[in-house]
């Protein structure tokens, strides 16, 4: 998570022979081990929270399972036994942790299928949608952020930042609904250009299938990009502004480099570092953040599944998805932490 605090621990870890290559490699390994340990502890904490969070729920989960239908006492008791709800709390907890670590997240009340299986089915759709969206909005954010900072205070900068802040304030689900009204249902002269939801029409194969999925993806991706690019833009802008006054840029200009080359070869690579961390953290966030967009566009992914699970509420499924969303964040933070020292030699060696 925090690269600043890791610098401190890494400096302590640094051995006297750290200057040699093998020493720095060992320091990096120690750093990696520390990060891995931290991630494992975080994951364990997520498991503990998810267990107890859903045990404080008011009402009987078995009642929720039967949707209020008339059921006999024997049926209720057998359901309790089936889902392990008749065991004492600590036994439920150890069972839960043991099973979760082997990938077994319980059985959904709603679909009567293993939660892990349901999640695995829906995962590719979410990865596709959010992956494409994050790549596009990171690229747009970096590009516009660089332009904004390089000409800071200009009209272009003001329009850029103002636009980004405005779009950032817009609720994603609302933007999605408006896009559906405008471009799928059609308002006035605009015909319905895009499908209203889903991922495919169901009758295509081969290249036509790929085109069909892309056609379905246009509006959800636009929504995610519009709401998401502001953060990348602002981080890139402020980190490039930090570099702008640096002496090495004056040196580069004094060498006679063109403005374009100074920006691309000298300023941007240095300003990119905080933004890289940002992109990874966004990747972790976006799986959870797509809940709204997937719901609005009926995208068959994890976010849509989460919404379905909430409306019952289907506790094992909500719990499983909670663990997966938090796990994604932990994984992406870990990747950012591991990548950072490789990009910036001042950190972690």
């Amino acid at each position, binding site marked *: 998570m925090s690269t600043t605090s890791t610098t401190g621990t890494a400096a302590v870890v640094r051995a006297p022979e750290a200057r040699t290559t093998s020493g720095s490699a060992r320091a990096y390994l120690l750093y990696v081990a520390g990060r891995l340990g931290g991630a494992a502890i975080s994951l364990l904490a997520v498991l503990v929270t998810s267990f107890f969070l859903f045990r404080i729920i008011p009402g009987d989960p078995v009642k929720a399972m039967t949707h209020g239908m008339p059921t006999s006492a024997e049926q209720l008791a057998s359901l309790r036994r089936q889902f392990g709800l008749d065991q004492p709390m600590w036994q439920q907890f150890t069972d839960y942790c043991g099973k979760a670590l082997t990938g077994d997240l319980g059985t959904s009340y709603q679909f009567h299928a293993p939660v892990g299986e349901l999640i695995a089915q829906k995962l590719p759709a979410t990865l596709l949608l959010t992956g494409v969206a994050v790549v596009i909005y990171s690229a747009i954010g970096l590009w516009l952020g660089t332009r904004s900072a390089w000409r800071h205070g200009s009209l272009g900068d003001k329009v850029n930042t103002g636009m980004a802040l405005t779009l950032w304030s817009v609720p994603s689900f*609302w933007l999605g609904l408006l896009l559906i009204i405008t471009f799928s249902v059609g308002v006035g002269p605009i015909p319905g250009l895009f499908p209203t939801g889903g991922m495919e029409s169901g009758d295509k194969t081969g290249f036509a299938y790929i085109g069909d999925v892309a056609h379905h993806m246009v509006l959800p991706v636009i929504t995610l990009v519009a709401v998401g690019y502001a953060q990348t833009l602002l981080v890139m802008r402020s980190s490039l502004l930090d570099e702008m006054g640096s002496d090495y840029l004056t040196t580069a200009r004094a060498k006679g480099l063109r403005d374009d080359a100074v920006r691309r070869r000298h300023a941007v690579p240095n300003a990119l570092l905080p933004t890289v961390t940002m992109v990874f953290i966004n990747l972790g966030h976006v799986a959870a953040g797509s809940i709204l967009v997937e719901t609005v566009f009926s995208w068959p992914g994890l976010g849509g599944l989460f919404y379905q699970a*909430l409306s019952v509420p289907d506790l094992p499924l909500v719990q499983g998805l909670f663990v997966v969303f938090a796990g994604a964040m932990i994984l992406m933070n870990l990747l950012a932490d591991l990548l950072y020292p490789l990009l910036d030699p001042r950190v972690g060696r």
Partner: protein
Amino acid sequence: MTITPVPKTARTTRSARSLAWARRRGSVARFWRSYRTHRAGLFGLGALALIALIALAAPLLVGGDVQSVTNAPGTALESPSAEFPLGTDQFGRSLLGLLVWGARISLTVGLLAAALSVAIGTLVGITAGHYGGWFSTVIMRITDWFLVMPTLVLAIVLATVMSRSVWTVILAIGVTSWPTTARLVRAQTIAVESRPYIERAKALGGGHSHIMTRHVLPNVMPLVLAQTTLGISTAILTEATLAFLGLGDPTIVSWGGMLQDAREAGAVSSGHWWYLAPPGIAIALVALAFTLCGRAIEAVLNPKLGVAR
């Protein structure tokens, strides 16, 4: 430079309390002079004043009975007309009236949730920064772990698990969004406590609580103010999201709830954009206004940030 001894003697005769007040007035005036130069911040402040006025005057503007489903004035899903400038919802209620009432809940939840979150963050940050040692390590570990949690998912889960009410929403947003503030405040606390005047206060016998509340807190307050303002816009967006997912109080009209109603009434497939557009614009406007104010405050306190004017 001419020496003017008169005000100096006048100042020495004033009490410590009046001196402190004069100093505070001076710094507020300085802050305002600097804030005034940020045009976006002024726009945000103006928009907020207008919306707050509308929210406070809601009973006078549209009357208290617009939320009633039973004796609604219009028929269901009317288009905009002279009587109903924004049309009606599926119960025949005036959408303009609902929009005006919705401002109250949005602002209330936004302000209270942000205040709760910042209060927790400040408390955790100052204690962790002040005491240090293993206590600080443990607290910051917990903070880091909260920071890794997907905030929206945690808020949704909390709102699902607890009963449906406005307080649940405030609590769910407040207890999930404090870690950023805690980190910032802790860093600021450590910076403040390394200054010599803290050592002087300790030498004069100031205890832990005296130093934390009388010396550290006033110094971290400006930062906390900027955090709160930015936090309000996030809280308002989260509130709208929770209401849209059907996790808000179903008996109270809110902007997010209006959007959920619109979706359930089939406003999307029948192209009733006048039902959908206004609540979203209202949410975006309020969130943007708070963001602009927060950024202007940040820029005043830390001119190095380079925020565009």
